[in-house]
């Protein structure tokens, strides 16, 4: 049962906490991360306890199912209700659209399948004589998988409802949002293994914002926070890689090439933020045959983004913490989610609910 606790070593954590204390300025600092897994690490290990009062770290638009627009969900629900098999990742089926979730559609008799990967959707299509739609959500980490199935002789009855999003444009957009007040970014380790460091360069260069790519062990996160504070102290914002054991400067070029072959950047609507230029992916001309929007004539029927009865939009943009919302853990729980932040395993509200995430307990 003994094992080396390299990444949870309390002495090293203490040393990093001391460094954070020395590097922290007297004024408030808001560090934003954009990855649900970072929030899990921070909350599960109670890391906020290590930060001085004026330093806070919050989740921004880092939960892919949470930022998926209600319009895209409505399209998926409609496809499911009109006789198509809709495949998507588990959490996505429980996120509310305008009126319904995919799970509701399923309960009403529609064929909605939960898959663990894009290739599972292709397998389902190969074994089915129905039209099968893969509702493709997720950031740069899942887009290569969607590209892969389209590059590998996809079955003719398969199509893709693309809702993939790109993280760096959202990080820029968040800076321009009133009240966000971002002091520095803890950039997502997983996404960065794919895209490398270059896409973040715009943040320090044009906006003076420190960016540190961090890993997912408690010490990784504390170390990255210390580096962000050091950049601020030295007034020398750059993109720094604090996760070199997984992230290289150039990223995964094979995955990048696959994504570039299948997709092109497009404007995309984010729940809580609105439309962000070049923040989404659309299928290129050569793959339009597999575009569910084209195959089923879905363009031009999009409704308005609906407001939910909760503060999800603020939580998704790091302008509120989950317990700022009056519905948190009362009317809104993972069993009865009002907003998507309480649905997804990567949503801040669901993570705080699971891990008792009050800061500085």
């Amino acid at each position, binding site marked *: 049962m003994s094992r080396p606790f390299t990444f949870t070593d309390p002495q090293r954590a203490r040393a990093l906490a001391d460094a954070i204390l020395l590097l922290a300025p007297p004024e408030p600092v808001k560090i934003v991360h954009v990855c649900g897994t970072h929030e899990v690490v921070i*909350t*599960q290990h*109670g890391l906020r306890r290590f930060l001085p009062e004026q330093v806070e770290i919050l989740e921004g638009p880092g939960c892919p199912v949470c930022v998926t627009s209600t319009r895209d969900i409505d399209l998926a629900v409609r496809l499911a209700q009109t006789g198509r098999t809709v495949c998507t990742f588990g959490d996505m089926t429980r996120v509310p659209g305008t009126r319904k979730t995919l799970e509701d559609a399923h309960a009403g008799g529609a064929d909605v399948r939960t898959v663990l990967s894009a290739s599972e959707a292709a397998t389902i299509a190969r074994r089915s004589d129905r039209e099968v739609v893969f509702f493709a959500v997720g950031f740069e980490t899942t887009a290569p998988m969607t590209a892969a199935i389209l590059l590998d002789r996809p079955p003719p009855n398969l199509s893709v409802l693309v809702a993939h999003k790109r993280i760096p444009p959202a990080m820029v957009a968040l800076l321009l949002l009133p009240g966000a007040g971002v002091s520095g970014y803890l950039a997502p380790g997983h996404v960065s293994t794919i895209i490398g460091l270059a896409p973040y360069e715009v943040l320090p260069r044009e906006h003076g914002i420190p960016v540190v790519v961090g890993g997912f062990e408690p010490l990784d996160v504390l170390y990255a926070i210390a580096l962000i504070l050091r950049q601020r102290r030295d007034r020398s914002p750059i993109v720094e890689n604090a996760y070199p054991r997984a992230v290289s400067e150039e990223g995964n070029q094979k995955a990048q090439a696959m994504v570039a072959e299948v997709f092109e950047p497009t404007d995309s609507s984010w729940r809580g933020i609105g439309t962000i230029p070049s923040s989404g992916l659309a299928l290129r001309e050569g793959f339009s045959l597999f575009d569910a929007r084209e195959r089923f004539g879905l363009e031009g029927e999009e409704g308005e983004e609906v407001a939910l009865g909760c503060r999800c939009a603020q939580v998704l943009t790091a302008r509120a913490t989950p317990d700022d919302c009056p519905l948190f853990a009362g009317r809104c729980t993972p069993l009865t989610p009002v907003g998507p932040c309480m649905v997804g395993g990567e949503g801040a509200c669901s993570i705080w609910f699971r891990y*008792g995430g009050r800061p500085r307990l």
Partner: protein
Amino acid sequence: MTGENERISSLHGAGGERMGQLLREHVTRRFRRRFAGRIGLDQLDDGATIDLPSGGEVVITTDSHVVKPIFFPGGDIGRLAACGTLNDLAVMGARPLALTLGLILEEGFAIADLERILDSLDQALSEVGAALVTGDTKVMGHGELDGIVINTTGVGVATPRAIGDASLSVGDVVLVTGTIGDHGMALLALRQEFHLTTTLQSDVAPIWLLVERALAVGGVRAMKDPTRGGLAAALNEMARKSKTTVELEEAAIPVRDQARGLGDLLGISPFDVANEGKAILIVAPARADAVLALLRSHPLGQDAARIGEITTEYPGRVILRTQVGGRRFLEMPLGDPVPRIC
């Protein structure tokens, strides 16, 4: 709030928040007489007591078992059905005397499998010297249930009095009798969609002899077996009932490497899943070391550990001091993430 469309969901049987709600709102209050002794239906303890005119208390408990698969690494539904009930008696401080057996079988179920299950049930009973004294058998049509359902009711005697799960006092010490999460994680690994293999085995075992040792030392104020919902559910329940705070040291909680690894991989905490051969003991501080030493001298208790203490900071809550030195609430799991495991 009984909506017309309210239906039983699998979460209602998962031992977490949702199950407690079902019992409180829809089940227990339908019965007019809920006590035959000191501890009855309202306490939702591991069992109930019946007063004996001659002193001492009879403890009675019942448990139904459905598990998939019925044979699993480290045990089967027979051993589980025996241990679930025997251990509910044990953690109330009662020596198990006799069990009843209710069998519901699906048409087509292999008799060889049934015999294997019953032999394993008998083996568990014999490990603590309890008898199987009466029973009932029903067969249902093919497809009307999944193989086999077993109900066991157990009777034991506690002298002088049974031990509840709510008498926690500030300063008391929290002990566990061994590694946490083995049963739940072992069964989770068997779920086909994960494609996992592990050497982890269920811990299913009757713990009366182990508990009896601890009771002989004295100072045991409360006990509970952390089955569905695991350590987190059991301790939250105890904290709520006693309006105290349970404060735990994560690094002190014994967890096997395989269980920890599976938990990391699946994003499910070993603290949230079932144990079937473990007990939590709340012990007066002066007796804690002696109880721990005796627990460790028994084969079922060799990994026993002191994992925390009772404080007052947040009444009704469980606090976890994390390995790395952080601090957070350990929440009541909403439901066991593993369907049909006990």
